[in-house]
């Protein structure tokens, strides 16, 4: 319960950054924090008390393994996040080249 709450607070801190900040870099960093929190939240569900990692070995009980399904899905999402971050950074760099600022309130003019 307290772990879920802390993880949720981490997500909301990221959301706060995305909503209030004007700096594009800060917005990208806040988005990354939200991604970490979401991944952590999913993996927190998978943990079993006293469990072991889900790799079969000699003398290892299946009954005590943690849930492998959220782990597999989070593995997928981490890789996608790298692509998203790279694309956001590319957009921000292009915007900086065009407007010479990272402040989103100054980036008003449409393309042209």
């Amino acid at each position: 319960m307290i772990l879920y709450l802390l993880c949720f607070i981490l997500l909301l801190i990221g959301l706060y950054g995305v909503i209030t900040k004007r700096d594009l870099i800060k917005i990208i960093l806040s988005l990354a924090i939200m991604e970490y929190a979401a991944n952590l939240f999913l993996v927190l569900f998978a943990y079993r008390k006293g469990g072991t990692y889900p790799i079969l070995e000699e003398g290892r009980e299946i009954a005590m393994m943690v849930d492998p399904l959220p782990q597999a899905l989070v593995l997928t999402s981490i890789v996608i996040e790298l692509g998203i971050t790279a694309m956001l950074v590319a957009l921000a760099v292009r915007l900086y080249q065009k407007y010479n600022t990272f402040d989103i309130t100054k980036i008003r003019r449409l393309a042209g």
Partner: protein
Amino acid sequence: MVEIWLIFLLLIMIIASVVAIEVNSKLSAIITLGIVGLGTSLAFLFMQAPDLAIVQFLFEIFAIVILVRAFINPTKHQDEKSGINKFLAVCTAIVLLLIVWQSLDMLKSLPEFGNPKMDTAQYYLDHGAAETGSANLVTSIILDYRAYDTLGEVTVLFTAILGALAILRVKSKKKVEVSE
């Protein structure tokens, strides 16, 4: 024991994320984000997910390299002050606190930490090794039971990288046309 460690880690990550959002220098913000990411990696290790910990570690290093390369310009280093709308910030903080307060009931209704609901996963645990021949059940799920998910993931990653390259290329292409 694991729970105490995780609470400790999450507190560090919350402090680091607040610092990363509020600090003025860009370089400090990006490095502090690294603390959050490596804390996530360590938390995965505590929760018995070694594959995830390795991938998260690599992701973090790559992300920091990309961010520093893109945003830190040593020749004209200037930290422009990013003022924030005080009124908007206060309103957002109040609304988010209300969300936390309202979500307490929801968080209580979730399965308790340490007792996962394993309906689908129990099948994978029981039959995974026999049906796929993989000792690592996480990879058996990624590459066998949910191979289409992985195909979609690779497509998304490919598209994102292609998009990033296309966005960065526009200017150089125009230059070539002008010079010719």
